[in-house]
């Protein structure tokens, strides 16, 4: 069993200078807390780097090693390069693995990975192993293909859902890795070996037949068929190898395409945001113009009530004046007639003569009528009032406060939307910086070609396998013909061949039986963990498929076809734990941000189950993901060590022991 004892980093990512983390000898759970951007994933990568010389960025892509060195050290001291020393134990031996990248001689300021030299050596119980020995020892202790079950990023756990898709290349890769960790290749290799030995025995049988005159012709025919089969087998092997390579390419292209799809979505979003901003700018200009127009007459709105009151008062005055004027006009008309009667001494209407008394009364009435000058004065006043009222009407307008507010609200809203769009655009511009759209099109073309190649290879393999089966039938028929002749050598070679074939069949059956048993064990252990981890009481377990994909089973016996990201996470963790329990190869589990998708109830259950998942567990978490007080209470004595990654600067993190 592999157990990590310590890791020492020198200028690795934000871990400036030399910093060391020691892990307890008796296993248990160690937790390293660190907020975002402090270097949790870098620590996981430091272990990966030490073991395999590779660093994985978010999105499962390999990262340029040139970017790993500490920036402050490079800037302050002009020192480039980085080193990781991993101390571990395995099968009773103590190991010290050192891997270092340093600039090549003559390179003062490295700019790419080529500018570095990598040095790696493995010390076993104090003795440095030779390079080849060190490499093979490492591959035995921790093969890279199974590292996904020991070193994992919580964000990538959803990949295990691919196991439910039989045709998925990612699923196929994971299935192969699972079988590898479970030790299936020991049996499949045995089957292959005996298959090859049976073929060799067949060749020997043919040669023996050629030596006997009676069977010579059959021997020759068999030899020719075997040669033909070897050619076909070689072609089939080539096709399968090419198919594997094409599938790997397809998986990698799919991975790139997924990123490209995101990039394409980003590009579309960029265009949409640019249009939104441009539209908002146009509308802002329009609204601003409208606002300016409204402000130009805002003063009238402010005075509207005052103007109206004044105008109404003037109107009343005018009305009164008009009434006076009307009366004066009427009176004046009457006075004219009375004056004429007085002058004529008789009534102008009836012609009756006027007496003295009547004349006096008429004289008084005439004297009371409005003088002409006064009437003209009123007329002038009326004219002036009309002008004033008209002028007031000119300046009078309703208050445009509501309209102005409406326009201003629209402006504010547009500004907010524009600012939000601009913020998003800045983010997207940053994300799409240096993007080569031609490269994206090329990627799509390459993917299509790979898919077409896979189709052709699959057809080729089907044809080759058909031809191979036909040849094998012919070889079997010729062998049966040869068996009719008595020959000691021939019989001896036939017996050898039959033994090899039986052993091959035995291993084939063993592979099937072992796989079946493993699937059963993995299903049982995963179910046991799942029931422990899930907070849904109606889920009674997990069901496994041929590819080790796990489906949730409800208590009513039905399976749950769609599951949430959180449920996927729990299922993946259950699979991890089950594989750890059943694998001949065991080691520590190092998990980066494993609780991000889980609610508190699930987090608590996972924390409590951690000690059962592996003898050594290292968690890289942020405090809001896992509360230190809670986890201490939940794990008690099984929590062996706590560290915190503190911040010195944006490019300098420091590892501090908490307890």
């Amino acid at each position, binding site marked *: 069993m592999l157990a990590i004892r310590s890791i020492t980093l020198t200028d690795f990512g934000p871990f400036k200078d030399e910093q060391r983390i020691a892990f307890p000898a008796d296993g248990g759970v160690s937790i390293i807390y660190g907020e975002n951007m402090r270097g949790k994933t870098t620590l996981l990568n430091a272990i990966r780097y030490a073991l395999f010389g590779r660093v994985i960025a978010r999105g499962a892509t390999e990262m340029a090693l040139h970017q790993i060195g500490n920036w402050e050290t490079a800037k302050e001291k002009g020192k480039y390069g980085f080193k990781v020393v991993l101390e571990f134990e395995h099968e009773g031996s103590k190991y010290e693995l050192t891997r270092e990248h340093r600039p090549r001689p003559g390179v003062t300021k490295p700019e790419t990975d080529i500018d570095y030299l990598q040095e790696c050596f493995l010390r076993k119980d104090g003795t440095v192993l030779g390079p080849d020995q060190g490499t093979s020892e490492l591959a035995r202790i921790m093969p890279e293909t199974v590292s996904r079950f020991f070193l994992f990023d919580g964000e990538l756990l959803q990949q295990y859902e691919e196991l439910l898709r039989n045709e998925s290349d990612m699923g196929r890769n994971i299935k192969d890795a699972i079988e590898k960790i479970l030790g299936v290749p020991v049996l499949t290799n045995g089957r292959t070996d005996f298959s090859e030995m049976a073929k060799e025995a067949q060749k020997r049988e043919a040669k023996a037949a050629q030596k006997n005159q009676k069977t010579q012709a059959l021997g020759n025919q068999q030899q020719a068929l075997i040669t033909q089969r070897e050619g076909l087998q070689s072609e089939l092997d080539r096709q399968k190898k090419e198919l594997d390579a094409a599938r790997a390419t397809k998986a990698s292209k799919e991975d790139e395409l997924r990123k490209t799809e995101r990039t394409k979505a980003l590009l579309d979003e960029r265009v949409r945001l640019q249009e939104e901003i441009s539209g908002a700018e146009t509308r802002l200009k329009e609204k601003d113009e409208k606002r300016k127009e409204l402000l*130009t007459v*805002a003063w009238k709105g*402010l005075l509207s009530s005052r103007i109206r009151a*004044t105008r109404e008062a003037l109107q009343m005055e005018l009305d009164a004046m008009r009434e006076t004027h009307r009366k004066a006009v009427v009176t004046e008309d009457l006075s004219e007639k009375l004056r004429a009667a007085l002058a004529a001494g008789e009534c102008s209407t009836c012609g009756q003569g006027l007496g003295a008394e009547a004349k006096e009364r008429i004289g008084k009435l005439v004297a009371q009528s409005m003088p002409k000058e006064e009437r003209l004065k009123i007329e002038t006043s009326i004219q002036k009032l009309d002008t004033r009222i008209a002028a*007031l009407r000119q*300046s009078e307008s309703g208050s445009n406060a509501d309209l102005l*507010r409406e326009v201003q609200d629209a402006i504010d809203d547009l500004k907010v939307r524009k600012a939000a769009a601009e913020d998003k655009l800045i983010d997207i511009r940053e994300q799409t910086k240096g993007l080569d759209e031609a490269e994206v099109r090329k990627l799509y073309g390459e993917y299509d070609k790979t898919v077409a190649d896979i189709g052709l290879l699959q057809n080729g393999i089907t044809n080759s396998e058909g031809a191979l089966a036909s040849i094998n039938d012919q070889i079997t028929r010729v062998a049966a013909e040869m068996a009719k002749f008595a020959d000691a050598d021939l019989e001896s070679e036939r017996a050898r061949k039959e033994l090899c074939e039986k052993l091959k069949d035995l291993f084939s059956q063993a592979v099937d039986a072992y796989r079946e048993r493993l699937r059963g064990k993995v299903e049982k252990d995963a179910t046991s963990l799942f029931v422990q981890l899930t907070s849904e009481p109606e889920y009674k377990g997990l069901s496994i498929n041929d590819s080790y994909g796990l489906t949730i089973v409800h208590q009513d016996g039905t399976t749950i076809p769609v599951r949430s990201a959180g449920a996927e996470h729990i299922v993946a963790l259950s699979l991890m734990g089950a594989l750890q329990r059943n694998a001949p190869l065991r080691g520590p589990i190092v998990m980066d941000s494993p609780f991000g998708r889980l609610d508190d109830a699930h987090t608590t259950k996972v924390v409590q189950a951690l000690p059962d998942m592996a003898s050594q567990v290292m968690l890289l978490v942020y405090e809001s993901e896992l509360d230190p007080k809670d986890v201490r209470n939940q794990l008690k004595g099984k929590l062996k060590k706590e560290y915190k990654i503190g911040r010195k600067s944006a490019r300098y993190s420091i590892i501090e022991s908490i307890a």
Partner: protein
Amino acid sequence: MAEDKKTIGLTESNKKIMDQLVEKAGFKRDMDAAKFAFALAVNRGKEPGSVEGAGTIWNVGSFDEGGDLKALVQNLFPNADAPYRALESLMNTGFALLADEMKANPGLRVENLLKNDADVKA
């Protein structure tokens, strides 16, 4: 009738207030802000008076192209025998009022002022 002014303007301090208001509120022209200040003073019952230290900014012909303002002042203040002098006085008073408003409420919005003052008088 006393001889009226051919040009009108603001005191130095009121000119600064006008500039601030034009920038903050987004008036198209400074004279729109000046007319607004005049209206505010009138609306708040201020009477025309005399202005000390007012500089020359506008020609009354361009400030009041149709003569509506002159007529309005004459209507609102029939006793004012020099309408443009009265207008100048009231717009300076208005800017002083606006300065107080802006001091009390740095995020002052014309539409709010318009609404509040119109409501008060309505």
